[in-house]
């Protein structure tokens, strides 16, 4: 039993989790500032320089609020549901490689918490179980608007989960593995497109899958323009209606952590992760993840919300056939070579 290796993994996981929580808090700041600037206003700039202490102020405020549990609520499930969402959200970051392996004191230290050979499936499985935070939260509130909001949100999440998974099958065909370390290694190769020598990033060889993944990821994390279940004008606030204070912030922050983890996954799967022109390293991964996070906020500022039937119709009638088409095309190209992939 490799106790030291296990200890190193635990320490690295601890560091990753804390950094993730810090990023989640400042993601709220980032979103509020960027959204405000896009809407031609300023956003929080009073608490601390540039409003940087705003997340702390928010946390203190939410912690100090009264804890209200509705009389109709199923008490145990009401208390557990937001915790479920919040606990499952950061687990996706456990499989992302944050750098190449180092050698410290004669041991190889991997800069990922774990390298399982089903890493991407694990990420999809977390999304599947994360649905329970929503559905149980809506049920436990004892409020029919909450149940309706939870049902809508659940149906949306399970539909887009399908698209998410299928869009990644093209990458599995090209790599022959589901491990993120293998996928990164595959993206280090060079792709020759005529006179150009490009890194074999999957955004170039799987553009359709990239677009599908992005759309499905925005819908999975219940973000605009797919945020009908939690919009203020719809069903009050959907499944979050009866939650106040810190329990509300569990859902809210779980959504931000989901966004960050999905951005990290997208950077690793499609943009080559830690790969970059001069020096490979975690800074490239952070830059790429920031691009995706900015894209998330940009979408929220720009697009109006989808209506629920449009949302479901998009998933089942447009994105799912396109994902299947992508799989078929990738399989064919792989089978017959064509000198491309």
């Amino acid at each position: 039993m490799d106790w030291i290796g296990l200890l190193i993994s635990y320490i690295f996981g601890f560091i990753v989790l804390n950094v993730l929580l810090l990023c989640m808090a400042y993601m709220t700041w980032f979103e509020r500032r960027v959204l405000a600037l896009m809407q031609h206003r300023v956003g929080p700039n009073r608490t601390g320089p540039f409003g940087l202490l705003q997340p702390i102020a928010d946390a203190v405020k939410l912690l100090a609020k009264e804890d209200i549990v509705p009389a109709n609520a199923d008490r145990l499930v009401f208390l557990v549901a937001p915790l479920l969402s919040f606990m499952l959200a950061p687990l996706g970051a456990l499989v992302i490689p944050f750098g190449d392996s180092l050698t410290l004191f004669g041991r190889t230290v991997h800069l990922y918490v774990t390298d399982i050979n089903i890493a991407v499936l694990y990420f999809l499985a977390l999304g599947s179980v994360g649905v329970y935070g929503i559905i149980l939260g809506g049920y436990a509130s004892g409020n029919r608007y909450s149940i309706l909001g939870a049902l809508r949100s659940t149906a949306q999440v399970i539909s887009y989960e399908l698209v998410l998974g299928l869009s990644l099958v093209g990458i599995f065909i090209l790599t022959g593995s589901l491990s993120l370390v293998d996928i990164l290694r595959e993206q280090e190769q060079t792709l020759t497109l005529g006179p150009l020598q490009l890194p074999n990033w999957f955004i170039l060889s799987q553009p359709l899958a990239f677009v599908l993944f992005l759309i499905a990821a925005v819908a999975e994390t219940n973000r605009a323009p797919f945020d009908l279940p939690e919009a203020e004008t719809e069903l009050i606030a959907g499944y979050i209606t009866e939650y106040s204070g810190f329990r509300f912030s569990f859902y809210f922050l779980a959504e931000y952590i989901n966004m960050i983890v999905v951005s990290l996954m997208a950077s690793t799967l499609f943009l080559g992760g830690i790969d970059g022109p001069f020096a490979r390293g975690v800074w490239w991964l952070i830059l790429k993840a920031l691009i995706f996070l900015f894209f998330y906020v940009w979408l929220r500022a720009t697009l109006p919300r989808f209506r629920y039937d449009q949302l479901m119709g998009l998933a089942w009638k447009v994105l799912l056939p396109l994902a299947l088409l992508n799989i078929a095309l990738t399989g064919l190209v792989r089978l017959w070579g064509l000198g491309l992939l």
Partner: protein
Amino acid sequence: MSIQVLVFYLLAIVSIGAAAGVVLARNPVHSAIALMVTFINVAAIYVMLRAEFLAVAQVIVYTGAILVLVVFVLMLVQQQDLPEFHGGRPLRIATGFVLGILLLAEVLAAILTRSLRGQPGPWTPDAVAAVGGNIQAIGRELYSAYTLPIQVTAIVLLMATIGAIFLARPETLAERIAAARRIFTISLGHPKGTDLGPIGELPAPSQAELKPASFTRPLILAKSADEFTEQPAWGEVVRR
């Protein structure tokens, strides 16, 4: 006691406890949550057996799809619509108990005497590692030796989907008229007025006010609501 054995015992105890919770919980949604805990612990046991793909498939399919559907249905059913969970005739309870004990005895016998253990197949851990892992091994088996069962399963799932779509189809106008013809309207428009007693006598409706129902629905004039309903009308004083 190595760490693997300890972890296995922990997972097994939680699985069995949650499974007991499924049966013993009063609230059906609590049963579903307990079932989710069971599934996830079983998935963890699969990981310990080095069947990682099976573990993830268990989580994605069982927990993430099937159980979500079950919770959907449970959420939409009100508590009072469900049949009685407690109670039932003593003979039924006794029979159930005896059958349960018999089943448990059979399973224990099979496990403890190891009489159901089969022969090890060709996929030893070395063979699995040689093709590159669990998923590759499963892929090779499924898509070469088990191609036909996969196609048959796909057809069965397609049949289920088509059946579901057919059952949920919207009604045509002809169906709605036929359904309307089968129901009738009960009117308390007795020529003498309603018999509400203490609330007061309402004036009797004139013949002109008793309009015929649409869709050629038959109209039945009743003297009191008791002939057709069990629940008292609003304001009705029930005299027993």
